[in-house]
């Protein structure tokens, strides 16, 4: 298993740079009103990730994963070149353009969406 993880590392690194890239397409006003719904998220560190003092956040449903990742990097004062990986269900890394509402609708438990984060790839 650990061998597999190191084999995957290159690919996972690329994914990360992709995941944390923020795209502000400027036409978020066009989004459906339902996406403005507030989503409760719970951020859980894993591996060597720094702990965030505030774990529970409320975000707008139309915010993409890339926005959350950038926000967390700023909050934890990570260097711009440091990497942050976000996972859903401790299984997969959602696409950077995936919005919170979609993730909440599919993967929330007990009214909130749990996102695990780490600085090295956790679940290839």
């Amino acid at each position, binding site marked *: 298993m650990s061998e597999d993880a190191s084999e*995957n590392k290159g*690919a996972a690194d690329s994914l990360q*740079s992709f995941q944390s890239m923020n795209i502000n397409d*400027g036409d978020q006003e066009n989004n459906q009103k339902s996406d403005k719904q507030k989503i409760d998220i719970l951020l859980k560190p894993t591996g060597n990730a720094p702990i965030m003092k505030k774990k529970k956040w409320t975000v707008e449903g139309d915010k993409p994963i890339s926005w959350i990742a950038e926000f967390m990097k700023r909050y934890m004062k990570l260097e711009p070149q440091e990497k942050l990986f976000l996972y*859903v269900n401790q299984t997969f890394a959602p696409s*950077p353009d995936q919005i919170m509402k979609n993730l909440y*609708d599919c993967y929330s438990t007990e009214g909130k969406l749990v996102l695990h984060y780490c600085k090295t790839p956790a679940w290839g």
Partner: protein
Amino acid sequence: MANDREILREVWEGKLPISFQLDPDEVVELQQPDPFYLMVPRLSYFPLVTDKVRKHFLRYVANDKQDREMWLEYDGQPMKWHYPIGVLYDLLITSDDQLPWNITVHFDKFPENQIYKFSNKETVESYFMACLKEADVLKHRGQIASNMQKKDHNQLWLGLQNDKFDQFWAVNRKLMEVSQEQEHFKYIPFKCYLDDGYRQKLIKPVDEDGRRKTLQDLINEMFPGKNVVIKTHGMIPPLETPLQWMSEHLSYPDNFLHLCVQT
């Protein structure tokens, strides 16, 4: 599981003729380059099929732009490389009279605030595998993908990258299997594309009475009270098509149904 194997092959073999042209403003040679024509698989991703396009145009652009990331544009819009090619076509093109698909190639002014950069094919691979795992979470609680070996993952990726149907499906059929006690997936992995992105929800392939749900049921759950037309793989599937069958036969290689919504 998939008995209608010829349908899987038909879908796999879907191709689009594309004429790539370098943006005339980026040409530094006296002579304009010829367009570059390619038949590309609908199921693939642009970064996997455009190496030759890049090579063809490279010597026509300024030296200092040659190692920049190439990007593609259609009708003023930068193309999202992380959408499958067939999805981009179904979203952007309304009529097949417009073939070949005219796409403009750029090396300059990468629109970083509109599309993602990909540094190499590994970026596409890790993105693709993440989609596949998500689909398996929806279908089988993620148990099949996570129990696979690294070589199975490689085989899926190489099958897609090299356009090898048998190689890909030898592994993918495991992801499309249903258990003996339950003859369907837990949920159907799908994305419904609208003008401003895509929507996902949990939709089961059967209702409480065990009746097989159809595309019409999906539309009713996603867009209550609205009249919408769903397009995928360049066709409009009949509304009575069962969702379980669609998921097994019309999913893209990432194991998601990519449904373009026309209102």
